[in-house]
Each structure stands twice: as structure tokens, then as C-alpha cells.
């Protein structure tokens, strides 16, 4: 089987292997052919989010993608490349802090029902692999855009009935946040955990409207100082 890996140049490798995941193939190349190949990996079971790369321009986890002859492997986009298939995730992860993606009010007094828990179950499956940032055309042109996984995380906490101050969370994501998304759905298509950040962003928009915010793209809804007109 032949695959090509985008390094400083596109390098082709020929590997003798049966049905295998991309991660198994990368490991085989590394240990038997080319010890200089760099890539990240960890759990091998699609839960640590280390091994996200692009195959034929689509984001996948190397440990859960079955390699096909002729595949072209590249690092994630929109994230500083360190070497070969390894990118620097620090900046993307910083958006979790910028978006204040955490529970603001700590309380023991709120009991969650089964229904409450189901509201944000899928959002809490996120593994921060970064595939959604790589696929996001908005983040590609606006590197201050909070981006898909951070906004999904904000929705997770806004939707949590234990959060007493959801309004403060909503306030944080108005600029370079939910209104910048074009709802193109690319993030949903590449998510290995079947999360739809696009849907979460839509939910945050509805929630924002309830809190008196409106889409700034319709400029008439704002005063000169940028605050919304109710």
C-alpha cells in the first residue's frame, strides 16, 4: 500500500500491511522505515484527541481511520505547524479560557434529573481533537473567532441547570463568537464524536436573543456604542 505524507515536501511511503488504521501505518513507518517522521498519538481508542490529521483534505482521527491505497496525509489546518503532522494546539485551546467555558457558580444544591443530564451529554463527549478548527472557514480568516469546540463548551455550561449565571456566559461570546459563524456545518461533518458545534451555536443564538441580544450583522439593532437596542 502506498500513502503520501505532507512533510516539508510530499513524501511517499510504501507499507506492507493488511487492513489497518492510519495510526498503525504511521507507527509502522516510524519504527521500520523513517524514524524522523513526527506525529502525535496516545490512547489508540479515539478518546484522547491526539492524532487528528487530514486525509485527502478531510479531518480524521488517525486511530479510527482505515487507510486506503493512495491516501494523502496532512497536518490540521488553521493551527501553527510544528513539524510534519504535529500542530501547536495552544492557541485553539486558549479559546476555552477566552470563552470562559466553565461552570461559574459552584453549588451543591441543584439536583440534576435524567432529562437535565441528557441536555448536554453529547457536548461533554468532546475530546478537543481540533478537527473542527481545522475545518472552520471562519477561523481560517478570523483568528480571533472563538471557534467551534470552545462555543460547544460554552453551550454545555449554559445548558447545565447547575449554572446560576448563564447570562454572563452568553455575554462573553457576542464578539468574535456566535454571530461570526456562517452555519456552514463543516465542523459537524468532521467531528469524530458526532457533535454539531453549528447546532450548539444556533442554540446559543436563540439563548442570546432571549437575553436581548440580536445579530449584529443587522446593524440597525445597535446604538453607536455597540450596545443592543431592545
Amino acid at each position, binding site marked *: 500500500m502506498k500513502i503520501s505524507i505532507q512533510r516539508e515536501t510530499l513524501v511517499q511511503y510504501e507499507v506492507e500491511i493488511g487492513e489497518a*488504521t492510519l495510526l498503525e501505518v504511521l507507527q509502522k513507518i*516510524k*519504527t*521500520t522505515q523513517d*524514524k*524522523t517522521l*513526527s*506525529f502525535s*498519538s*496516545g*490512547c*489508540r*481508542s*479515539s*478518546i*484522547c*484527541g*491526539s492524532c487528528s490529521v487530514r486525509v485527502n483534505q478531510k479531518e480524521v482521527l488517525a486511530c*479510527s481511520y482505515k487507510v486506503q491505497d493512495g491516501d494523502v496525509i496532512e497536518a490540521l489546518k488553521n493551527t501553527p505547524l*510544528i*513539524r*510534519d503532522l*504535529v500542530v*501547536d*494546539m*495552544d492557541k485553539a*485551546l486558549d479559546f*476555552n*479560557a477566552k470563552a*470562559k*467555558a*466553565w*461552570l*461559574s457558580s*459552584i*453549588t*451543591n444544591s441543584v*439536583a*440534576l*434529573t*435524567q432529562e*437535565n*443530564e441528557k441536555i*448536554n*451529554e453529547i457536548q*461533554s*463527549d*468532546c*475530546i*478537543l481533537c481540533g478537527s473542527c478548527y481545522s475545518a472552520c472557514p471562519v477561523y481560517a480568516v478570523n483568528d480571533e473567532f472563538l471557534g467551534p469546540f470552545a462555543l460547544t*463548551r460554552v453551550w454545555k*455550561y449554559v445548558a*447545565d441547570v*447547575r449554572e446560576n449565571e448563564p447570562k454572563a456566559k452568553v455575554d462573553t461570546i457576542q464578539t468574535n463568537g456566535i454571530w461570526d459563524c456562517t452555519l456552514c456545518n463543516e465542523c459537524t461533518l468532521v467531528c469524530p464524536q458526532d457533535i454539531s458545534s453549528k447546532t450548539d451555536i444556533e442554540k446559543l443564538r436563540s439563548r442570546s436573543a432571549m437575553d436581548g441580544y440580536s445579530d449584529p450583522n443587522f446593524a440597525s439593532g445597535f446604538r453607536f456604542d455597540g450596545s443592543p437596542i431592545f
Partner: protein
Amino acid sequence: MNKSDVLIIGAGGAGLVAALHAHEKGVKVRVLTKEYPTRSQTCMAQAGINASLGNAGEDSVESHVQNTLKSARGMANEKAVRHMCKNASDAVMWLDSIGVCFSRTKEAKIAQRTLGGASSSRACYAQDYTGLKILHTLYDRCLAKNIEILNEKFLLDIIKNEEGVSGVSVLDIRSGEVEVYESKSLIIATGGYSRIYDKHSTNSTASSGDGISAALRCGAKLKDMAFIQFHPTGLKASSILISESARGAGGYLLNSNGERFINELLPRDEVARAIDTQIKNGQNIFLDIRHLGEDFINEELPQERKLALLYENVDPVHDLIPIKPVAHYTMGGIEVDTSSSTCIKGLYAVGECANQGVHGANRLGGNSLLELVVFGKQAGESASLYALENDFIPKDTLYELRDESENKNIKLDFYKIKEELGELFYKNVGIVRSKQDLFLAQTKIKEIQSQVHLMGVVDTNKVYNTNKIEFLEFKNILEICEQVVENALETKRSCGAHYRVD
């Protein structure tokens, strides 16, 4: 600039819990990890975290203590076990308060399920993503508290003198430069060493015991290194974990004849040995959860279904899952006292790399996540107290990394040797052991150690040199292997996970 009161190496569950509690005490905390926090081994914990909440039938702290002691086969420290079990409810309530999405009962209580060796349904869980959801919530909490976490720093050595620790040297993986971080106290939270079994382990490739070997090199004591838990149900081809909750929910173990051969809910060491005996008699072993039904599997065991499909090409709803026992958790580790302190002043250890004495000869499912929350708090508080009472110790010498890439005389491929060593350990220092097999393993390790100078790093690039990192991990693994086999030879009596046939 590179100074902090408390320095924590490792950003898995134990490291982050310690960081949060140290931060609460008002000291400056810094965390270093060789990966990113959410990539740590904790994310792979699936089944649950034990606490005798009694939400699914009667339970008590005492039952939890007794189950833990029984599973530990008399090797646990009862005081530490009592401390852990007594604080379990508070630990789970704390996790719940910071936003962990535990599964719920119809009565809006935290749901609990039964794991092996437990007298009641005691494990609180979040589907089969318990570790993932706990780890990510802890990470979010650290962001909320603005705790400094530096990613992709590989621990080289602990720097200390006779007065105590003064910091660490690390390799910045991205730049390839050696850096020194100073601190008043230091917490090692680097996880276990199951990857000494190479591909015969459920663990992340990162579980190479880096913190344990660094602690050993600086004079800390290790304890019970031979005690390594084999999980009964790793997928046969890939060693990927199928959670104990599959058996807890009523899954069967079957041999090639379709016969059950063991009570599936006995502690892990007994089940693993029963499977091993069957395999040695030529049987193939399968996990059967078909009778649980598609709805139940989708709701309670979604990850299991996905992994079985991907790695074994079988659908657990309709097919048997081929399994084998694989190395899963290392009970042995850095010896610590009742304040999580090692024998070196200012040096603490917590989580799988530490030996708190709560697991003894065999860890109970659901107790490892609990351990890291309860003792993470203890380690964080102890280390911050130490930092408040003590000053920085100036370091005596500048520690520098030998440049591994300078070896021009590479004759042996360490990747090949690492794999062979894993095979040898699985066979000779695995589920059942004999004096003869252990001696053979010891001889082999000595032989490899004498050849290390013939191995080295082929990649000459400084930036993100994973070849170099993997060589450093290999050397740590080799040091750990030596300790494991030595302890296994010393311990002549069979006990829990250490089973001597002679």
C-alpha cells in the same frame, strides 16, 4: 521567572486535582505535562468512580472498605483505605459541583453500577466516558482558576540536594531545548508504567513511568513494583480496553466451546488468571453481551460497541467479542506516607505513579479515579503547606541532557528491542510467573542495559523529535523493568496480581 511555589509534573486527573487544591491554599502553582492535559491517561477510564452513596441499593463506607481490603489480599494499608473510602462521597459531590455530567437515576440522583469485587452498585459513572468527563471538567476548572499549565515538556530529572528538592529539568519537546523549573515543592503525577508490556497493554503509549524512574534516580523509594493488574477484557488484536461495566451489566465470558468458565464478577486478578489458563489450553476467549440488547448497549456501552467494530470488526449487538487479558494498571509506584510525601523533602507523588497502599495486590475497579481525587487533594494541600513553610533551595549543579543524537555508532534499533521486551514481559513477568521465567527476564534486561550504548536517536532535528522522546521513554521503561522483575523475584509468595506458580 521559572519559579513557582508548587510544581506539578503531569496534568492527568491526579495532577489537576492537586493543582486546584494547591491553588486554593494561595500558593503559585505551575503544571507541566509531556502531552496536553486532556490527552492524559485519565481520559481512558471508563467504568466509574466508587462512593457508597447508596443511590442504587444499600451501601456503606464499611462495605467499600471491606471490598477494597479483600481485593487487595491483605497488602493494603487499612488506614489509607479508610481515608479514601470515607472521603469518597465528598469527592464525588465535589466533582458534581464543578460540573461533571454524571449519569442520573429517575429520582435525579447520581446513577451507580456494579463492578467486579463490589458488594453493591457503587460506581458513579458518565456513560462509559467517566474518566473523559472528569478530566475535561477538571481542566475547565483549572482554566477558571487561571492555573498555569505548560504543554509538551518532557521530564528529564528531579533536581535536589540533601536539603530537599529544588526543581526539575525538562526537555521542551517543541524547541528541543533543556529547561529548568524551580519550585519549593514538587508533585509527581505522571501516571503508571503499563507500557513496559508494550502492545499488551490497554494504556496510552505515554504510560512509560517517566516520573517513577526520575524519582528512583533521585533517591526516592519504590514499592510493590511487581504488582501489575491485568484487565481481563482487552480486545484480542489491539489490547484496547472493553470496560468492566460490560461484565458488571451481565456480560459473559465464553471459551471456544461456548462455555462459561468463571464467575465474571470476581476481582480482576482471578478472572484474568482463569482466562489465561483457558488460553494456554488452546481456547479462544470471548466476551458476550448480545443478550443485553441493542438499546442497553447503545445507552450504557456506546464506546465499547464503537471500538469492537473498529478494531475487531465485530458488532457486540450480534457477535462475540474476542478478548485477552492485558496490562492495565500498575499498583506499584513511588512510596508515599499518609501526607502523600516521599522520603525526599518537598517531593510528593500522587495517582498511579504513587503507591498510597490503597490497592494492595489488586486494585478494585472504580477505585483509581477515586484515589486521584481524594489523594490529589491531599498531595495538593501537603505540597502547598510545605511551600508556605520552606524556601527555595538553590540548585547545586546545572543539569544538562546528554545529547542522545550524538551517538554515531548506532548498531541496534531500540524500537525493535522495546517490542521484544514487551513480548518477553507479557510471557515471563505477566499473569503467572515462575522463578525460572523471571530469571530469564532479568538476564535479558541486563543484556539490553549493557547494549544501550549501541542504541540511539537517528533523527537529528531538534524540533519535535519524537524519536528522541521515545528513546528517553524506552530508557525509563528499561529502568522500571529492572525494578519490576527484581520485586517479582523477591516476592516468593503469590498474592493478588503477583501469581507465582512455584
